[in-house]
């Protein structure tokens, strides 16, 4: 019914506001409210997982992802990020590499995973690729990461 749809968009408006303000506890509640009436709302589910990540509840997030494969088909990045933060870098790398084509965010995560796995040569290549092809507010931080990779390559080579 249209009343239901109006209600749904009101709930999404709430969710959107909390997300923009970085109020992830509240966003999580709003997302759950949507999902309790519309269990197949993919975007609400996505917001729920992002909220859990922002709240550092990586175990919970990964649990919900694996219990809801249908809603999680586009959440490769989120899944791999949880695995990375739960100190499962091998699994995280597998998850990332399950994608045919890596988006910038997946490349960024892959670089960090390779660093954790001490695969510095490949890590270096990924960073060089990202730095060449992105422009955002984190270029200094990214170059700091690149120099950390270089430092480790030097230690390895010595």
């Amino acid at each position: 019914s249209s009343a239901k749809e109006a209600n749904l968009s009101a709930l999404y408006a709430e969710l959107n506001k909390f997300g923009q303000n970085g109020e992830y506890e509240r966003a999580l509640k709003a997302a759950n409210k949507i999902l309790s009436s519309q269990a197949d709302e993919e975007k609400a589910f996505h917001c729920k997982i992002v909220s859990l990540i922002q709240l550092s509840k990586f175990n919970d997030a990964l649990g919900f992802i694996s219990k809801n494969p249908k809603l999680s088909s586009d959440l490769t990045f989120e899944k791999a990020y949880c695995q990375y933060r739960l100190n499962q870098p091998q699994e995280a790398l597998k998850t990332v590499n399950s994608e045919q084509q890596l988006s910038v965010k997946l490349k960024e995560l892959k670089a960090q995973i390779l660093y954790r796995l001490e695969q510095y040569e490949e890590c270096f290549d990924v960073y060089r690729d990202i730095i060449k092809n992105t422009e955002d507010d984190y270029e200094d931080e990214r170059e700091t990461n690149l120099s950390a990779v270089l430092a480790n390559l030097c230690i390895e080579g010595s």
Partner: protein
Amino acid sequence: SPKGPKSRKPLAERLGEYREDPSLTSKSPNVYRLPPDMKPIPCKPLFFDLALNWAEFPSLEDKLDGAAKKGQSNAG
């Protein structure tokens, strides 16, 4: 030899050479220097978790005015 029995080099630092050392069977054997000498090691480089910046909500635009759009398409 230059290193007589009076040498205070602990056993751990002269494993390659044979020498009778009565201190080893005494109550205070000179086996290892404790605490060990300080030595510099490379520090852990600074490394930022930039991937976290990418953990963000999808665009909810279509959900916000979704009802209105559907209303339009029904009318049209």
